[in-house]
């Protein structure tokens, strides 16, 4: 795995998506290399969240292809895609509010049948997210936003995914939790999980990403190594202009 150009794990090629008459994506092409963090930047209504839905099979494109580990996902249902090794941290967490924290985390292992290993993984999550230990039997809906984000990440990891897709993981969190979440994403990635994240908070996302894409009204307008984009004046103007970061 030490080749200079890592092989792609996930690719979207020439994806065109429509909601009724309205076109959301125009020939969208994105590659996530194995072991990388890739970040999709864009403003409101640029088609970011729909990109997540396309990867997860919640929305199907009119044309184009999505492949994961060399195999097309186009004809698969969401549960089938999850079983291929893609986990998700949905926008606004989307925990099962009336289930306990423990049940929420274990729901992440729904596709697994190795009970003992699942129990071990649960313990591992509690070392990774020590705060959740005291909260296990609490209703998930009663946690703070930051704690809920931890549960959502633990839940995603429980399926032992090869890739996690995250929709705005820092949205609505306090600055303290924003740093913590970014750190955790890095940790998860270092353990070999590829990450595809959608973010509005460009400067933070570019801190941790390997590559980034900038989406504008359904078209990729810029892409490249995160470091390069960070200094790109066009990104600066569009996203880093104000001091709204963090």
């Amino acid at each position: 795995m030490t080749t200079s150009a890592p092989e792609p794990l996930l690719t979207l090629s020439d994806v065109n998506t429509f909601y009724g008459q309205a076109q959301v994506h125009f020939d969208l092409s994105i590659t996530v290399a194995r072991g990388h963090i890739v970040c999709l930047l864009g403003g409101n209504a640029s088609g970011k969240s729909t990109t997540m839905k396309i990867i997860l099979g919640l929305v199907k494109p009119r044309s184009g292809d999505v492949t994961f580990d060399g195999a097309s996902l186009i004809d698969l249902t969401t549960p089938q895609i999850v079983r291929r090794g893609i986990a998700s941290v949905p926008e606004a967490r989307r925990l099962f509010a009336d289930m306990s924290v423990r049940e929420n985390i274990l729901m992440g292992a729904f596709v697994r049948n190795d009970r003992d290993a699942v129990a071990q993984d649960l313990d591992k999550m509690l070392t990774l997210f020590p705060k959740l230990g005291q909260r296990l039997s609490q209703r998930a809906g009663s946690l703070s936003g930051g704690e809920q984000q931890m549960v959502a990440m633990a839940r995603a990891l429980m399926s032992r995914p090869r890739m996690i897709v995250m929709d705005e993981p820092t949205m609505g969190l306090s600055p303290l939790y924003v740093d913590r979440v970014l750190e955790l994403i890095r940790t998860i990635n270092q353990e070999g999980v590829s990450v595809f994240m959608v973010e509005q908070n460009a400067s933070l996302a570019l801190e941790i990403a390997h590559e980034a894409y900038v989406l504008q009204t359904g078209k990729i307008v810029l892409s490249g190594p995160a470091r390069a984009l960070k200094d790109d004046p066009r990104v600066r103007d569009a996203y880093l202009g104000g001091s709204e970061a963090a």
Partner: protein
Amino acid sequence: MMSSWLDYTINGLIVGNVYALVAVGLALIFGVSRLINFAQGSIYLVGAYIGWVAVVQLHTPLPLTIIIVAAASALVGLIIERFGLRPLQNSVRIAPLLATIGISFVLDQLVMLTFSPNPRALPSQLPDVRFQVGGGTIGPLDLLIAGVGLTSALLLFVFLRYSKLGWAIRATAQDRDAAMQMGVDVNRVNQAVFGIAAALGGVSGLLVGMYYNQIDTAMSLQATLKGVVAEVVGGAGNVPGAVIGSLLLGLVESYGVAVFGTSYRNLFAFLLLVVVLVLRPNGLFASARQAPPEPLTGTFIAPSRPVRIPRWALLVAAAIFAILPFFPVSFYVLQTLINAWLLGMLALSLTLVAGTIGQVSLGHAALLAIGAYTSALLSLTFAIPVGLAIIGGGLMSAALGTALISPSFRLRGHYVSIATLAIGEIVSLVILNWESVTRGPIGISGIPPLSLFGYELVSPTSIYWFSFIVMVVLALLQARLLGSHLGRSFRAIRDDDIAARAYGLSLNRYKSLAFIFGGFAAGISGGIAAHLYSYINHETFNTQQSILALTVVILGGLGNVVGAIVGAVALVGLPEVFRIAAEYRILIYGIVLLLLVRFRPQGLLGTM
């Protein structure tokens, strides 16, 4: 007297247990798919008849009977889910609701055609002894029902809490998309839920049949209604709430019967429902933070572009129908068309209320009943000329109908349908029980025939013209209304009531206006019908008619004036043209509804 109170309590709890078996199924289904399954009572009916076949024809022992009923009912549930509802997953939200109504008509009619509508005895196979408990008595069947209720509740609890599929069901109920992203196959969850709900419902039907030692096809609608009441009282989608709501309902009914008599049983059930809907629409046990389980904005009705019919074509069609009696057409054809015009008036009313302003009423026949009784009593008791009496019926329907529905103006979506269904039942039960005015179960006979300015309209031709002209006038008024600013406000409220409110529209005022206009049209139709039939009672205008009207309106296209009339002519006329026997008609209405929902939800002429 003290001792019998205990008996009434035991009876209430036993009946409550039976309701719980139905209501828990409804709650599971509502939880997972936000759908009120109006076919639940039909499965209960099917369960009872399967039980009858097993007990009376196959002589199976009781435990085996229960297993057979549970398994066969579950199979029916699975078939309904797979072929009736799964194809509708991506359609408008009203589609599955309408589909379950269609399915229930089809199932009920199939049972009726197979077993005849006559009641049958369903022996319980248990020894007929009663034990003294305190001051009351309890029999083996009571214990069986309590045992089945408790065992099912316990099994369900363990299943939901500890099995993988149970977790999947709970997760799906809380967040469908998120559950899918955990790898939950939502179709399997739906399947499981329908299977469980149907098994419970079927067993419930079996037990009720044994309890009263009688089954008949009228059980179905009653069971659906009671189950819905219990479920909504407990909080839609809340499984433990459904159990408590059921026991509460059983007790309320039992005590109500103890104090007021048997004919009041259902009245209490529906009053309880309306009170809960108005005061605590999320049920007695919902927490305050809970969001209303309905979409806030309207995707409830299939949007479409209505078919434009040129004015000259409408004029030609009206002219043909107007001069029809001059041609040698049979009395039979005129009679059929008179029925179509009367149904057309009801459909105009419903298409305005359900289609234009988006309040899908399932109790519209109550407006007919109010109009009919008012007109009949005015002409009989006060000797008011029939023409005026009919107008009085229309006005009374407009006023009373609007007053009755107004507490539910704050409800949305499915809840409006439930509330209107309940109000429809309440009207019919009040007619049944208010003997001093309505003559109760005897009904009103000797209603004077139609007359206008002193001339009796007795020939079919004159009745035909009279009803046709009245309908056309109402249709023109309504078309005028829809084109006005008021019509646009109605549609704005239907499409997005929050946005409409943000623009300063008072929802209550506009809903009232729609119900006043709609109530008037329906009341006129009921009034004319009363003088045509010369005899009416509390069952003349029943839920079947409400559903028929809804089918007409959907067939024509919701909100579509011309569509309502075309739908009425089609649904009244076509069965006559093809000489379909009466007992098959309702079956056909059910099938028409199912096909429409599946293949042309916008109706023939499109929604407006």
